[in-house]
C-alpha cells in the first residue's frame, strides 16, 4: 500500500486554504490509492498535475500510468482494479464522454474505481465552464454519482466513496463544479492519515487477478445468465443508500462532519421547496434564508446522491409540500432538466404529488445569481402550476 504523501502524521486535523482540485488530491493521497491513471483536461488538469508531481518526487508511492486518452485511462484502471488494487482517475466533459464504453465496463466488472468528474459543458459551441451535462448524460452507466457543494465536501466525499465502492463493488463518480470549486480556494480541514486509516481500511477484494491461480475475468455470459448479472448490479445499487448512511455515520464519528443523500433546510412546514445540486445549493441557502425572513413558507433541498436517485429520502421529505422548484444546470434536449425528469418519475407513485417547476439555468458556466434563484422561487410561489414545461431562468429575451 502507498504512503500518505506529504501529510503530517499524528498531528490530527490541519486546516488549509486549498482549491477544490487540491482537495481532490488530498482525498486521493489520504485514501492510499495504489494506481492513478488520468489524461489532462481543463478544468480537471490541476488534479493530475498535483498527483503526478507528488508521485514523480517520490513522496507518494503510487503508480501513475501515463495514457494517451481518457478511454485508455479508465481501461488501464479496469485492469489495475481487476488486479485487486485501489484506483483513481479524474476527468471532465469530453474526456468523460470519451470514457463512455469503459464506464459500463467498470460497472459490469464490478470494479470499485473512484473517479472525480469536474463538471464542464460539452461543446460545441466550445466551452470550458461549469455545467452538469457531462456527468448526468452518463447516468445509465451504473456509476454511483455523488455531487459536492464545497471543497471540504469534495475531500470528505472521496474518502467515503472508497468505502461505499468497495463494499457494494460499484464504481463511484465524485462530481464537483468547474472553477466555482475546482479553481476556487476555501478553508478545508485535512484529516490526519492515521485517522483516515482507521476509517478506510486497505482494499482486500475476494476476486482479483492472481498469476498463481489464473482465471478468466469478465467472461461471456450467455442469455441464460446475463440478466442475473445485471440484476446483481441493481441489487448493489439498491444497497447504496443504506451503506452510504452507515459510512457517513462512521465518518461523522471520526471527523465530526457528514453528508446525507439529500439535505433539507429552511422551514419544516414549507409549502414550496427549492431543489438544487452542486454549488448552487450554497447560493440557495442564502436566498432561502432571506425569503424566510420575509415570512415566505419556503425550504430547500440539496441533492447529493444522483445515482442511485434518493427516492425514499425525497418521498419522506415532501410531505405537505405543494410545489417544488428544481434548478437544473443541464439540458436533455427534447425533455428538459435531468434532475427535474428524475424528480417527476420519483413523484409519480406519490398520492399527493407536488407540482414540479423545472428551471433550466446556468448552462455553460453562466452564474446562477441570488436574484435568479429568488425569481425562480417567487415564480413557483406565484403560480399554481408552471406555465411551461421548461422554465428558462436568465435566458436572454
Amino acid at each position, binding site marked *: 500500500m502507498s504512503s500518505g504523501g506529504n501529510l503530517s502524521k499524528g498531528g490530527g486535523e490541519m486546516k488549509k486554504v486549498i482549491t477544490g482540485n487540491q482537495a481532490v488530491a488530498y482525498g486521493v493521497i489520504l485514501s492510499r490509492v495504489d494506481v492513478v491513471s488520468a489524461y489532462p483536461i481543463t478544468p480537471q488538469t490541476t488534479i493530475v498535475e498535483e498527483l503526478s508531481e507528488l508521485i514523480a518526487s517520490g513522496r507518494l508511492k503510487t503508480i501513475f500510468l501515463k495514457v494517451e486518452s481518457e478511454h485508455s485511462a479508465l481501461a488501464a484502471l479496469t485492469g489495475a482494479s481487476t488486479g485487486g488494487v485501489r484506483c483513481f482517475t479524474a476527468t471532465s466533459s469530453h474526456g468523460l464522454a470519451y470514457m463512455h464504453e469503459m464506464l459500463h465496463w467498470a460497472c459490469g*466488472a*464490478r470494479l470499485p474505481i473512484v473517479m472525480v468528474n469536474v463538471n464542464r459543458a460539452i461543446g460545441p459551441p466550445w466551452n470550458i465552464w461549469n455545467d452538469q451535462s457531462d456527468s448526468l448524460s452518463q447516468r445509465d452507466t451504473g456509476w454511483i454519482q455523488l455531487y459536492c457543494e464545497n471543497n471540504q465536501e469534495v475531500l470528505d466525499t472521496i474518502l467515503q466513496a472508497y468505502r461505499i465502492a468497495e463494499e457494494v*463493488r460499484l464504481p463511484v463518480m465524485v462530481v464537483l463544479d468547474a472553477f466555482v470549486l475546482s479553481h476556487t480556494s476555501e478553508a478545508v480541514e485535512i484529516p490526519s492519515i492515521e485517522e483516515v486509516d482507521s476509517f478506510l481500511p486497505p482494499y482486500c477484494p475476494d*476476486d482479483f487477478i492472481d498469476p498463481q*491461480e*489464473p*482465471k*478468466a*475475468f*469478465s*467472461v*461471456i*455470459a*450467455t442469455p441464460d*445468465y446475463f440478466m*442475473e*448479472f445485471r*440484476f*446483481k448490479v441493481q441489487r448493489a445499487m439498491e444497497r447504496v443508500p443504506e451503506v452510504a448512511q452507515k459510512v457517513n455515520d462512521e465518518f461523522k464519528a471520526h471527523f465530526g462532519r457528514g453528508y446525507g443523500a439529500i439535505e433539507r433546510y429552511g422551514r419544516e412546514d414549507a409549502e414550496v421547496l427549492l431543489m438544487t445540486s452542486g454549488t448552487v445549493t450554497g447560493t440557495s441557502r442564502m436566498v432561502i434564508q432571506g425569503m424566510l425572513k420575509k415570512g415566505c413558507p419556503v425550504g430547500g433541498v440539496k441533492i447529493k446522491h444522483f445515482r442511485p436517485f434518493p427516492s425514499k429520502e425525497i418521498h419522506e421529505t415532501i410531505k405537505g409540500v405543494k410545489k417544488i422548484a428544481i434548478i437544473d444546470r443541464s439540458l436533455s434536449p427534447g425533455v428538459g432538466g435531468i434532475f427535474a425528469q428524475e424528480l417527476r418519475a420519483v413523484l409519480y407513485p406519490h398520492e399527493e404529488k407536488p407540482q414540479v417547476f423545472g428551471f433550466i439555468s446556468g448552462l455553460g458556466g453562466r452564474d446562477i445569481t441570488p436574484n435568479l434563484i429568488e425569481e425562480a422561487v417567487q415564480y413557483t410561489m406565484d403560480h399554481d402550476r408552471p406555465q411551461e414545461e421548461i422554465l428558462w431562468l436568465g435566458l436572454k429575451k
Partner: protein
Amino acid sequence: MSKQLQFKSLLEMPEIAVSVGSMDWNKTGAWRTQQPFYEDKTPPCSAACPAGNDIVSFIQEISKENYEGAWRLIKEENPFPAICGRVCFHPCELKCNRGSFDEPIAIHALERFVADFAAGQRKKIERTTEKGRERIAIIGSGPAGMSCAFHLAKLHYRVTVFESFSLAGGVLRFGIPSYRLSKDVLDQELSDIEALGVEIRRGISLSNPLRIEDLKDFQAIFIATGAHQSRGLSIPGEKGRGVYRGLDFLKKINLKARVKLGEKIAVIGGGNTAVDVARSVVRLGKKATILYRRSKEEMPAFEEEITEALEEGVKIRYLVNPIHIHQKDGLKRLECLRMALGEKDESGRRRPVPIPNSNFFLEVENVIIAAGEDIEFSYLPKGMERREGIVLTQRDGSTGIKGVFAGGDLTSNQRTVAHAIGSGKKAAMAIDCHLRGKDSEEAIRQVLIGEGPSLSIFRYLHPDERPMNSHVVAFEELNTDYFELAKRKRESKRSVKERVKGFKEMTSTLGEDSASEEAKRCFSCGTCNECENCYVFCPDGSVLKGAGFSHQVDYDFCKGCGICFTECPRGAISLREEAR
C-alpha cells in the same frame, strides 16, 4: 469443448463473470485466421554490401559490447574489415533505412572500430587443423585474390598466392594513398590470412602470357590480376617528359619513391584515382588542379573524397578537355577546349561536347593522367574470352578454361575494394563446388543476400543457421514510433592544416562509447533483437520466451490479431494466412 458452468439459482451465481478455474482448456488459437511467426528478413545494408557483410548482426553484437563477436561475424564473410572500414565507399549507408529517419548508421566507422579493437587485442581467426584438401593457385594478391585465398583456406584448401611484385596487397598497397589506408593496417590483415596457412609467393613472375600447364600441380586457379594499365588520352604530347599516369604516380608515392614534380600540377580525370592523385600532390606540397570534361554531377569520384579534396586546396575545373600537351622549357602548356553537356550517352551521363574555338592554355609543370584503368590482356592465358574491356566469366567466375576462375577488376567494371572482396569470395565457393562436384550456380542462388548479387559464404557453410527471408525490409515496413531521433556519430578528422602535411591517416577510429551509441541507433531491420515489444503487447500472453529460444508464438492461444506484427519496430515478424 467448453466446460460451461451451470447455476441453479441466483444465489449460486458469483457477483462477477469469472471462470472458476484456469481457462487453459480454451484453446483460442482455433479462432485464428492468420498466423504470426518470427522470420528474420534481409536488411537493406547487407543486400547493398558487395562484400556480403552480415551488417545488422555485427552491429547488434557491438550494441551488446561484444566487439570480438562482431569482428568474427564480419570475418565470416570478409577478411578485410579494417580496410573496408577505411576505404569502402559504403553503399550500405546509402541504403540504410535510418537515412529516411534522420541519418544513416555510420556502418563503415563501426566496421573499422571492431577491426581495430580486434587488432588491439591481437585476435586471430584460428587456423584449421584439418588436413588440407586440394591445392589452389591464386594469381594476384589484391583484395579479390586474398579474399578468395582466405575463404579457400577456411574451406581447408592449400592455397598459394602468386604475386609478381615484391609486396602483397595489389591495388590496396600501391593504389590507395596511406592517408586513407595505412600500410600497417594492410599488413595486419594480410598477415591474418597468411596465418591461416595461405602461402604468398612474392616477386614471382610466372610466364607471360600465363601458361596453365606451368600450374598443373594445382587443382584450380583463380586469376585476379586487376586493372592497372592507366588509360591514355590519345592526345599529342602525352608521352612527353613530366607527364605521368595516375596509377603509376600513386604506386611511386606508396612505395615512397621520389617523384620529380614541379609546383603546378594538372590532374586529368574525374574518378577516384584522379582525386587520390590530386590529394597526394597537395600532400607533397604542390598545387593540384583537376581537369574534368563533364560537370560536377557526372563526376564518378565519391562525393566525400571530392569534398575533402576541395578542403585541402585541390582545385577542380569542370567542362574542360585537354587536347594537346605542349612542351616549353620544362613547363607544359596544356591546350584545352571548353565543353558543354549534350545528350545522354550509354552510361546515362550527359555527353561532353566541345565548344568550337574555345581553346585556351594552362601553364603547368606536370600533367598526371588519371582517366581510368584498363586490363592488361596480353598476360592472360589463351582461351579466356573477353568483351568490352573485361574478361568474360560465368556467374560463378568460371572461365572458358576448366578449373580456371577469374574475378576482381579483371571481370567487372565495378572496380571497388568491396566488389573485389565479394568476387573473390564467390570464386572460393565456386572452386569448392567445382572440386566437390556441386552445382555452383545453384549454390550461389541459395546464398544470395536479398536479390543479390551479394552473397553469404556463411550460409553456404551453415545452411541451417541464421535463416533469413530474402525480402529486403523497406523503411515503410518499420514501426518508427519506437525510435528516437539521434545524431550519427562521426569519426574525427584531422584538421586540414595537419592533413596536408603528410600521408598519415586522416580520420581516427571511433571510441568505444561512440561506437556503442552508434550501434544502438541501428534499427536492426528485419532482425529480431529481443526488444520485447511483441511480448509486451500480445493481449493473449501468447508470446513465449524460454531457454534455447528467444521468442515463440504459442499457437494454442494466439488468436492471430496481428498486434505483434504491427508493433514489431523492425519487421521481424510475418503474418501468413492460417492453413485450413
